């Protein structure tokens, strides 16, 4: 009888210690794991206090639809339009990227280029980014819509996009 009682107690102690060890191991394993996305989400949510949110929204309301870069790109387009009409160092910078054939086409079809540049200026407000490559792609499609053949449109768009970067850099 005493032997049976001893066996029962022993089995209970072994069972209890193995459960507690299992709990420790899983707790250690959990601490070694990288934080789950749920925890990160909670952390990122707590970083925005009501005061910081209100400060952010006040800044957003102060900022115009396009920032300083958008404004400068618009100024650069206006400068290029004047240069195409009147000449000068900006026009020289554009023309230096052309071959003889493209330069001749450009000189004879200024009105088509100006039309595309006017549309490019309107597009700036809605543009998601204003990189040289985005401007080049957009201007190429606008030039083609304005009737410039594809043999010339890409090199004209490329030269003007380079000139915008040169002006605002």
């Amino acid at each position, binding site marked *: 009888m005493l032997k049976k009682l001893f066996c029962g107690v022993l089995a209970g102690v072994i069972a209890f210690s193995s459960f507690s060890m299992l709990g420790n191991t899983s707790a250690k394993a959990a601490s070694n794991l990288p934080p789950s996305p749920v925890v990160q989400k909670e952390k990122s949510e707590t*970083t925005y206090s009501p005061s*910081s949110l209100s*400060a*952010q929204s006040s*800044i957003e309301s*102060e*900022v*115009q639809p396009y*920032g*300083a*870069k958008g*404004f*400068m790109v618009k*100024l*650069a387009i206006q*400068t290029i339009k*004047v240069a195409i009409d009147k000449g000068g160092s*900006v026009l020289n910078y554009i023309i230096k990227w052309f071959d003889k054939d493209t330069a001749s086409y450009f000189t004879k079809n200024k009105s088509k280029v100006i039309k595309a540049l006017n549309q490019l200026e309107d597009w700036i407000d809605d543009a998601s980014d204003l990189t040289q490559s985005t401007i080049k792609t957009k201007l190429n499609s606008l030039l083609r819509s304005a009737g410039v053949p594809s043999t010339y449109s890409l090199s004209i768009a490329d030269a003007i996009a380079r000139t915008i970067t*040169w*002006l*605002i*850099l």
Partner: protein
Amino acid sequence: MRKIYEYISIDEKKEVVEKLKADLKELEQEINQNKDSFSKFVCEILYSTRDKWRLEIEELENEIKANS
């Protein structure tokens, strides 16, 4: 200084200053709130842009003051 400043009026320069100030405020807030999550490389770019904009605003304001 940017080449475009050679071709624009004082009023346009004043508008550029306003927009640069707004962008600078937004950039400073972005740096203060999230600098720990950016890499060292990105932080260097953000800090140099901030310094560049501060200097640009100062130089433009001096130019505006000298011409008004």
